[in-house]
């Protein structure tokens, strides 16, 4: 016997962004609760709006099944007296388990023979299990920010207003703060407030829809998409793609209705980014674009209420945007009265980070660093553009527009640079230096922005690490993880070959001077930053190769990121091949011997005069040849060829181990053989640390 289960937590309006994670938690908590109570069940569906989180589970059993388990009692030794009768321990155990001593039986365990009892736990009624289980679920939902209300001590993202708990047609009791469950739900706040009784769980979605609540997130999102598209079509355009905005709006409404509004055409003179920001960030309006992606003076707002007179409501929507755009124009006009370069001194009054000083100081460091990077990547002809862009990169922080819309930093810098007559490449670099903003963003299409952006991020990383403020698991206020990945993406995306270590070193010199750090502190920050980069690369490359391969390649160094990546790809290609494991095992053996014995022998290469077997001579020749080839191939960025050269040592190494006893009692011979193996190990050193690769132990000699 089973019935559907419905559990709805009704709330005051939850924050957009909190709704979906919360309902996902509720679903998981309810299902794990059912499973924990061994109540069989069918599929689960979720419903989530700003005012409700609900889960409907089909066919939840009325009763959990009886379960038989074995309880272990005393060891047989202690269970019987000398006369063969049960001891007190055995009798007590049987009593505790609620069985007779006769019902106990013997079981064999790794610790010996024991007495055991078969205990049957009777199943329990769902009506007894559900209240606790669902109570725990609603108490178990966690939010980024929670609050209390009234006299209650319980917390939730916003006050809980009602609980609906139905199993079949039966209400079961769940309590939260000042709310007790019932069979009532509420509809749309204004159109169908209710309360509405729900007879059976399966009635819920239809009942809500009649009460003007489209409670399924996916359907609501599609309704908004369709309605918005339809409205935009009426204006001869389409909605500008913005999935994040669509998701946000979906969590702001229960019953979406699209309204098409317009703004004055003259505002199209504002940079499109400004218009988009004005419409989306505060107002959550969808901008409308033409077939070519150009903004039209229209927008689509999603209302939560199909109002009686849309024109009246629309007047309000348009009016808010009009005053925002008027403000925006005011800032745009005011900001352009001062040339961008004239704003640079004002950065002396803008703090970047307490001890690391103002933005003016940061800009000074960025300029030095960017110049160094420009030379390092071999583009000295760009020095003037890069330096000008670095000087102006942060100047827009003092403008009214960026004060109002921090998200427009860089973009306004570009606009104001152009308006001030700066060369277009400089203007573009100002905007580009913030790219990539996120993981899915492209890197800049030109070098100046990439170089300034790299300098900016390296300065941030060096500064915070030098201050001893690396990010923690939960807090990364300066976005250091993103900055680190940004540097990696810039280097790889722009195809730069440069020494990461030197770049980091230069950045640390800059902040070290500001902080008055000694050489030891700088060295420590440098080591920490190196590890930080390693950690980010490990995460970034997790989908490129097996974790142990990534580790092995990183262990051989990543100063040249591009080269490191080609090595990784070369290894990822061969690591699955059937002949790779024996190779790895052979070289592990080499590495082990070198690690154990290598420190006792002289650092010189092996001495050919001490070779006794032909396989020694052959291995020495092969190693020297392979070493030269590895270096040549790596310099030519041909990691596969380098790897192939190193792999060619497999035969000579095997022959060597077959014919030669390394650990001979003859000390000069032994030391010479260790020296030879060290040469072999060094062939691989620039490629990867093979000892970190997990090779099957089976088959190892």
């Amino acid at each position, binding site marked *: 016997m089973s019935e559907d289960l419905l559990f709805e937590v009704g709330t005051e*309006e939850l924050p957009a962004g909190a709704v979906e994670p919360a309902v996902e938690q509720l679903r998981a908590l309810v299902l794990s609760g059912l499973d924990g109570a061994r109540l069989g069940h069918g599929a689960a569906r979720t419903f989530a709006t700003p005012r409700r989180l609900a889960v409907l589970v089909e066919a939840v059993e009325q009763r959990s099944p009886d379960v038989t388990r074995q309880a272990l009692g005393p060891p047989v030794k202690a269970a019987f007296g000398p006369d063969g009768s049960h001891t007190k321990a055995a009798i007590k155990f049987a009593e505790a388990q609620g069985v007779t001593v006769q019902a106990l039986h013997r079981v064999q365990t790794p610790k010996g023979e024991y007495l055991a009892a078969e205990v049957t736990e009777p199943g329990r009624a769902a009506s007894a299990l559900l209240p606790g289980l669902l109570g725990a679920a609603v108490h178990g939902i966690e939010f980024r920010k929670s*609050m209390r209300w009234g006299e*209650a001590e319980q917390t939730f993202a916003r006050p809980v207003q009602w609980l609906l708990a139905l199993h079949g047609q039966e209400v079961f009791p769940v309590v939260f*703060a000042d709310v007790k469950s019932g069979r009532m739900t509420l509809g749309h706040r204004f159109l169908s407030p209710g309360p509405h009784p729900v007879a059976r769980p399966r009635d819920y979605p239809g009942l809500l829809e009649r009460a003007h609540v489209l409670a399924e997130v996916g359907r609501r999102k599609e309704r908004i998409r369709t309605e918005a598209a339809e409205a935009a079509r009426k204006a001869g355009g389409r909605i500008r793609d913005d999935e994040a905005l669509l998701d946000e709006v979906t969590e702001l409404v229960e019953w979406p209705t699209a309204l098409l509004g317009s703004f004055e055409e003259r505002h199209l003179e504002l940079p499109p980014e400004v218009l988009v920001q004005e419409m989306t960030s505060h107002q959550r309006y969808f901008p409308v674009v033409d077939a070519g992606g150009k903004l039209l003076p229209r927008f689509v707002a999603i*209302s939560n209420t199909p109002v009686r007179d849309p024109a009246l409501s629309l*007047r309000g929507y348009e009016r808010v945007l009009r005053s925002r755009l008027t403000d925006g124009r005011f800032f745009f006009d005011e900001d352009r009265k001062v040339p961008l370069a004239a704003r640079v001194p004002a950065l002396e009054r803008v703090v970047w980070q307490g001890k690391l000083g103002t933005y003016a100081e940061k800009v000074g460091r960025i300029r030095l660093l960017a110049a160094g990077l420009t030379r390092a990547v071999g583009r000295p002809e760009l020095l003037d553009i890069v330096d000008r862009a670095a000087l102006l990169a942060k100047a827009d922080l003092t403008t009214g527009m960026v004060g109002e819309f921090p998200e427009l930093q860089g973009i306004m810098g570009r606009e104001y640079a152009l308006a001030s007559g700066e060369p277009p490449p400089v203007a573009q670099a100002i905007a580009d230096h913030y790219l990539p903003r996120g993981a899915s963003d492209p890197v800049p299409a030109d070098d100046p922005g990439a170089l300034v952006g790299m300098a900016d991020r390296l300065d941030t990383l060096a500064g915070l690490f030098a201050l001893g403020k690396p990010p923690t698991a939960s807090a990364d206020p300066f976005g250091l993880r993103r900055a680190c990945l940004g540097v990696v993406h810039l280097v790889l995306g722009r195809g730069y070959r440069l020494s990461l270590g030197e770049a980091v070193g230069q950045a640390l010199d800059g902040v070290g001077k500001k902080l008055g750090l000694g050489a030891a502190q700088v060295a420590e920050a440098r080591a920490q930053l190196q590890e930080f980069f390693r950690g980010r690369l490990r995460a970034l490359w997790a989908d490129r190769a097996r974790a142990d391969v990534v580790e092995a390649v990183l262990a051989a160094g990543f100063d040249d990121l591009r080269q490191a990546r080609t090595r990784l790809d070369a290894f990822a290609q061969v690591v699955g091949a059937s002949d790779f494991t024996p190779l790895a095992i052979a070289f592990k053996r080499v590495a082990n011997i070198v690690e154990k014995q290598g420190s006792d022998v002289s650092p010189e290469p092996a001495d050919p005069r001490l070779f006794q077997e032909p396989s020694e001579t052959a291995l020495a020749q092969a190693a020297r040849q392979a070493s030269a080839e590895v270096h040549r191939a790596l310099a030519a960025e041909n990691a596969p060829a380098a790897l192939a050269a190193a792999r060619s040592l497999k035969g000579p190494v095997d022959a060597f181990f077959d014919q030669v006893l390394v650990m001979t009692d003859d000390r000069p011979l032994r030391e010479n053989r260790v020296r030879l193996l060290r040469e072999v190990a060094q062939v691989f050193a620039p490629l990867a640390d093979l000892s970190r690769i997990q090779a099957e132990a089976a088959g190892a000699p």
Partner: protein
Amino acid sequence: MTFQELILALQQHWAAQGCILTQAYDVEVGAGTMAPTTFLRALGPEPWNVAYVQPSRRPADGRFGDNPNRLFQHHQLQVILKPSPKDGQALYLDSLKAIGIDPLDHDLRFVEDDWEAPTLGAWGLGWEVWCDGMEITQFTYFQQCGGFECRPVSAELTYGLERIAMYLQNVENVFDVEWVKGVSYGEVFHRNEVEMSTYAFRASDPAVLFALFEIHEKECVRLLAQGLPLPAYEAALKCSHTFNLLDARGAISVTERAGFIKRVRDNARACAKAYLEVRAALGFPLRKTGWTVGQQPPLLEGAPASRVWDTFLAEQKG
């Protein structure tokens, strides 16, 4: 609906729910929250339900009366409901009906807004209430005030009166709002904007203001030592306003700024603590009134949050 009718209708609505109407606090504040009728009364276990119009001065927002939307001084209608009632949102929506905003004619929405006032050691969660995309009210459940947990929680409703009036009267410029028939907001307050902006940006004497800040700060500490949190809090508010004036004048450097904010906050927190001690010494007298507004359903889980103050009370007596 004139500006005056708007105020009267909102006051009438909240009075009918059982709120007392107090008059605006007569010390300069930047927001209704800073008046002791909110900041201090939100502390401790005593019930408190109040509505008042608070002229709010924000020197840096002054625009010499030239900007249609920004003012040196605007007016907030501030409501505190403590403990926050179960039907707080419904009571609020009724107030909108009282001023002619019908939820079937307008898109009314509660949109997440986290509120924090570092200078008061206060924060809360709630919403900005939107009417057709425009923010008309802030609705906040206070969680902490003066560094103390709010038990019980107060609901704070702050109506931006000028903005609502502009909307209701469909005017684009705040100075065109009709205060009463035939008299505009501009005729009442434009000159005030011109002079106050001139004062804040040009005519104020930073040396005098710095001196005043020091005087008020010392006065706050001195009065606290005498067990007088109410006058001490006035002094703390004067520090806060003086800081805002100095800030608008550009007289406070970046490096000094955080220090000044901390000095204001330290005093506000000390006032909050002293206020609680005085109320405890009086035995939290308003508790006996059983004064509530809106629905207050009994708790089904745990003890009422305000119980924690019994411990505080015992400690004060001990």
